[in-house]
């Protein structure tokens, strides 16, 4: 029997959305108009949209049917009880507070658990997570293993936590200064890299020793579970649903952006085992989000989430999901394209420094590459490099991050194998003509989050 099976989709297409085919002349004009910033493109000018995998999934017919069963009562909607039961059953957490999306849950947990001067260790930062921790008076400390920062290192669980570093941190500051460990499955900023079950078990042991809680950023937990099933000893025959439950059982609570794994366009939740924290969350959610039985979500969206959670835990679904990402990654590697290794679960990260070695970092190689890929084929990607990193608050100079990346994020159940082939062909085409590509100069720079609205011109 073949060990590696095809990742063919375990579904057929029921509803389609037209995409707009454009020619190179049009794309050259459009990208110039938006100042070589893919964020500013209108969706109608984009052929394949790889800007994000968040909220961009195609829902199933069952989820659309669930939308019709939305109970929009302000209080006590049956969709909430269905969602609560689903989360309790599949993720195992006791209490659930719905939020309009993941950052709403991050906001709540930070306000409830973090005091001024606290330290929150985690396996690499994420933009919104760290911001909420800082706003609550805490400081984030990165305790991910050093391999995670090396794009060439092929270790399979680059989301693992450096437990030695964590223990030294606990000894240095004292356990009472650490309200919880922020543990993400998978680690987005490291390239969608998973954490191993062995590491997670050791983390639980260590935190139990000091009485510290583990809060789980579970937005891509099923994708992480798939990687454990594929690569970790003893899990090959365990269903993804069971691995997910095992991960959740090793933690004390979770924030979830349901816009990723749970296959919906909007939604999130905070899940907690601690009854006191839950009580506080219920009282806070009404101020920021909405009453605790809807948390800022339409009833129909809670229903779609409950169905999406179940669908996301199917082995067949996940094999196709991650299989598609790995297929694209492997084809790019075979073509000699420099990408972050190993290939993660939700996207491909192209190393722009190695792709365009003749463009210095102050001429924005990743921004340049994202624009060139768009011009070549209408594929929209995102810069994750010097533009995203912004300026140093003290010196006013650009921050030059080690990783200068272009992210190709794959929405779930949206694109076909033929689309993947087009993406690969386009990146290869740009790679073949890379010597002719020139860098960019920034001509408009907003004060905050400049990557979103900055404008450039060709040098």
């Amino acid at each position: 029997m073949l060990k590696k099976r095809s990742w063919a989709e375990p579904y057929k297409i029921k509803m389609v959305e037209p995409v707009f085919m454009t020619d190179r002349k049009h794309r050259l004009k459009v990208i110039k108009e938006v100042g070589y910033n893919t964020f500013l493109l209108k969706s109608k000018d984009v052929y394949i949209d790889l800007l994000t995998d968040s909220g961009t999934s195609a829902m199933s017919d069952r989820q659309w049917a669930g939308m019709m069963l939305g109970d929009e009562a302000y209080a006590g909607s049956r969709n909430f009880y269905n969602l609560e039961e689903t989360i309790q059953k599949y993720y195992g957490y006791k209490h659930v507070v719905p939020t309009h999306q993941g950052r709403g849950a991050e906001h709540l947990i930070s306000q409830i658990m973090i005091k001024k001067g606290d330290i929150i260790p985690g396996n690499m930062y994420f933009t919104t997570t760290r911001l909420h921790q800082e706003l609550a008076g805490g400081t984030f400390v990165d305790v991910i293993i050093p391999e995670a920062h090396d794009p060439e290192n092929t270790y399979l669980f680059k989301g693992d936590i450096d437990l030695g570093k964590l223990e030294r941190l606990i000894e240095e500051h004292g356990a009472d200064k650490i309200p919880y460990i922020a543990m993400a499955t998978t680690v987005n900023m490291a390239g969608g890299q998973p954490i191993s079950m062995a590491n997670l078990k050791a983390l639980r042991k260590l935190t139990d020793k000091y009485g510290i809680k583990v809060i789980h950023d579970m937005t891509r937990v099923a994708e992480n579970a798939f990687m454990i099933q594929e690569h970790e000893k003893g899990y090959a025959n365990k269903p993804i649903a069971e691995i997910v439950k095992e991960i959740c059982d090793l933690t004390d609570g979770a924030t979830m952006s349901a816009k990723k794994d749970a296959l919906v366009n909007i939604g999130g939740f905070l899940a907690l085992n601690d009854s006191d924290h839950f009580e506080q969350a219920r009282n806070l959610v009404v101020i920021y989000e909405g009453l605790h039985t809807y948390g800022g979500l339409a009833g129909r969206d809670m229903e779609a989430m409950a169905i999406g959670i179940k669908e996301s835990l199917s082995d067949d679904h996940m094999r196709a999901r991650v299989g598609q990402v790995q297929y694209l990654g492997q084809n790019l590697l075979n073509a000699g394209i420099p990408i972050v290794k190993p290939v993660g679960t939700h996207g491909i990260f192209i190393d722009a420094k190695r792709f365009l070695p003749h463009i210095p970092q102050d001429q924005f190689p990743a921004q340049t590459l994202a624009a060139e890929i768009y011009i070549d084929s209408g594929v929209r990607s995102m810069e994750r490099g010097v533009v995203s990193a912004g300026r140093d608050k003290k010196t006013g100079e650009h921050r030059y991050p080690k990783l200068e990346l272009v992210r190709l994020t794959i929405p779930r159940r949206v694109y076909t194998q033929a689309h993947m082939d087009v993406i690969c062909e386009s990146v290869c085409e740009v790679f073949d003509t890379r010597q002719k590509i020139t860098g960019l100069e920034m001509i408009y720079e907003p004060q905050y989050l400049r990557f979103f609205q900055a404008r450039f011109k060709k040098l």
Partner: protein
Amino acid sequence: MAIKTIIEPFKIKMVEPITMSTEEERNVFLKKAHYNTFLLDSDQVIIDFLTDSGTSAMSAKQWSGLIDGDESYAGSRSWKRMEKTVKELSGMEYVLPTHQGRAAERIIYTHLGGKGKVFISNTHFDTTRANIEFSGATAIDIPIEEGKHPKVYHPFKGNIDIKLLEENIIASGPENIGAVILTITNNSGGGQPVSMQNAREVGKICKRYGVLYLQDMCRIAENAYFVNHREAGYENISYKDIAKEMMSFADGAVMSAKKDALVNMGGFLALRDEELANACKNLLIITEGFTTYGGLSGRDMEAIAIGLDEVFEPDYLRYRIRSTEYLGNKLDALGVPLMLPIGGHAVYIDAREFYSNIPVDQYPGQSLVCDLYTIGGIRTVEIGSVMFGTYDEQGKLIPAPMDLVRLAIPRRVYTQSHIEYVIEVFAEIIKRKNQAKGIKITYEPEFLRHFTAKFEPIN
């Protein structure tokens, strides 16, 4: 033939079953919900008059808009459509989408508020007040004198007291005023409209003292109907043009789209000033979502754009206001003491007078809410001393100015026979009102206590 009966300017395209129950069953349900109707499950309710917020029936066009939603993270056509609609209506350049109205409020009041700041309004609504007080600022209500007396007729009981407004600005010092907020219509004051003249005068005073002028425009279309019918000079002006003129006086507006935009989820903040908008955008990104979706799915933005047009259709508004009035007139004829004249979105019962055998510190409003539920399965909300009461230093209740019970009518949801049933229930309530019992609070959270508080009847 001139039509006398108010027929709905639509027919039904999709229905949702109601679960019927008996009085005995409801006694058990209510006890389990700690005599708080917010804690009831929706399938325990026959007629849900808890709120008109997010409970509208959407049109076939809006449902098709849901399917048509563009979920692109950036440059979504659904966002462009919503932005254009709001800009046209408000005349304001900067539109920030939020998952619902309270998020728009939280953003602007977090930015403007803080210790020592004062906000002045015709009447702050519960979530508005909570947001302001949460920031450490003070909220002052100055409705016109007529607005405080349920029996006194005035065409625009939602007006703010212009003289008191100026006095308060001078007393606090203009530099300490966070904003003047005109709630249109005035929800806590009985859903009473605000006149164009009043809105204009507020603008003049705010300009004179350099104070920011905001409008809560969540029922601006219903208000426009009253201006057209009650204010001289507006008989021949369209509802939409009346709304536009009213907003032209303000510097900014918050909207919960769950009311007059006829949707189940959504809201926005609209502003004229670029600097203020940029500051608010930073807060938006942290807790809501990026500036092009703000925590809403593309499909919900699509539905808002369509709803904001539909709500100004003259046939719809006439049906909406007249059917609310129909219920009010029938209850008035039965001798139920009401807030008069009947407002736009709800009928408000003066529970302090209706249940005059129950002392104010035993919450006559909450008592009536409980009876309406057990006797008729009708879910309503208390807007009185439970919602707005505070305690003095001895822990004695400082009651709200009025103890009202609100029968909020969801838009396009209930038929005339539902309304006839409600009237029958009131006839029964009148028969039994001498047996009504007082209520005590057994648990209350710090903010917005009415949502999660627990009660017990006093025997």
